[in-house]
């Protein structure tokens, strides 16, 4: 019996569970398919089973930023954070989240287009977002000065726990108060 035969004997669900357990980033379906040789439909089935089995447990299998990943559930954060070697950084500033929201809904767009909505210079905040790799440049606008256009990254989706761009909160009625 060769190694390939042995691999085929192992349940696909367990293989998927094992690779998701150790992966340092969310794994897209495509990558799982390449790793296991299984079809996307087969993978979706076993992932659905896994998600069912992990319901009510301390971890969950989530689809975030275009891929699957295990996360501890939010209610266990008080314990989870005690065992992490590095203190997690503070969250993004209001200006940063606001700018990201504009980029996310209007991408790709230029700095000037961001500033038209915000009504204030956004050079520094865009630079910060670029440094954090939450946005990247996406070509240049066909306009005088050929300014850069920006779009959000997968890291942006992961940071906000979004499955994909169409998972963004809806942009309809303005919020009041608060």
């Amino acid at each position, binding site marked *: 019996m060769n190694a390939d035969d042995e691999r085929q004997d192992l349940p696909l669900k367990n293989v998927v569970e094992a690779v*998701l*357990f*150790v*992966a*340092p*980033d969310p794994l897209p379906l495509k990558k799982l398919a390449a790793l296991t040789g299984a079809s996307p439909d087969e993978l979706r089935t076993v992932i659905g089973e896994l998600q069912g089995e992990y319901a009510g447990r301390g*971890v969950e299998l*989530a689809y*975030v930023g275009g891929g699957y*990943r*295990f*996360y*501890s*559930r*939010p209610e266990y*954060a008080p314990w*989870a*954070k005690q065992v*992490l070697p*590095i*203190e*997690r*950084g*503070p*969250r*993004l*500033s*209001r*200006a*940063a*989240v*606001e700018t*990201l*929201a*504009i980029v996310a*809904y209007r991408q790709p767009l230029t700095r000037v287009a961001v500033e038209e*909505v*915000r*009504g*204030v*210079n956004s050079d520094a*905040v865009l630079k*910060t977002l670029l440094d*954090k*790799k939450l946005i990247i440049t996406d070509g240049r606008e066909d306009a005088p000065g050929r300014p850069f256009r920006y779009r959000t990254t997968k890291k942006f989706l*992961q*940071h*906000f*726990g*979004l499955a994909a761009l169409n998972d*963004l*909160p809806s*942009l*309809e*009625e*303005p*919020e*009041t*108060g*608060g």
Partner: protein
Amino acid sequence: MTDYRVRLPVYEGPLDLLLFLIQEDELDIYDIPIARVTEQYIAYLELMQELDLAVAGEFFVMAATLMEIKSAMLLPRGDVPKAEGLEDPRALLVAQLLEYQRFKGAAGELAAREAEQSSKYPAGGDGRFSGGAASGESIFILLDAFRGVLARAPEARDVVPGLRGPTIEDRLAYVRRRLKDAGGRVRFDALFEGPRIVIIVTFLALLELLRAGECRVRQDRTFDEIWIYPTLALV
């Protein structure tokens, strides 16, 4: 005021301030009482200048725009057909405010998603970034509360001559100590005591600590007390 000049940046823009003024007084965004809002806007702008905050040039452009709209409102518009909504001098500004408010709302929802996601710890290590301070609340909420504190403060002339003025370093140490001693949160207005100059420098020190991410501000509901929370670094 040169001895404690720190030029703290204000990240919010003029639209933030206008929305803040409109929401605070529960004004109708479609029918903004422009004279009243202009007056309040300029009062905030003056306070920010008095504190020597690094206010973006756009704040002054907006002040000019507001005054322009205010004078346009005084012109008789009897001949204008009523159906022409664009003839209202406020129309452009209102459209801009509404558009901005939509994104602010979306940003609020994104921030909530961020908060939830940040309490989920991924398998296979944490690739998240660090750094970049979150202020928690708008600086205008702080400025609003600070106006109250200043109004109750003794007049400037009670500074004892010959006494060394407060430095930003002294007041940074003071705010840090207060947060540490409290072992938790400190009420915003409880931070301020003594002469006016001390109060002003203490406020600037607080802004500096917020900027550096050493503490956060939280006001859970409008008109509730404002609290300062140390971040983990301080405890």
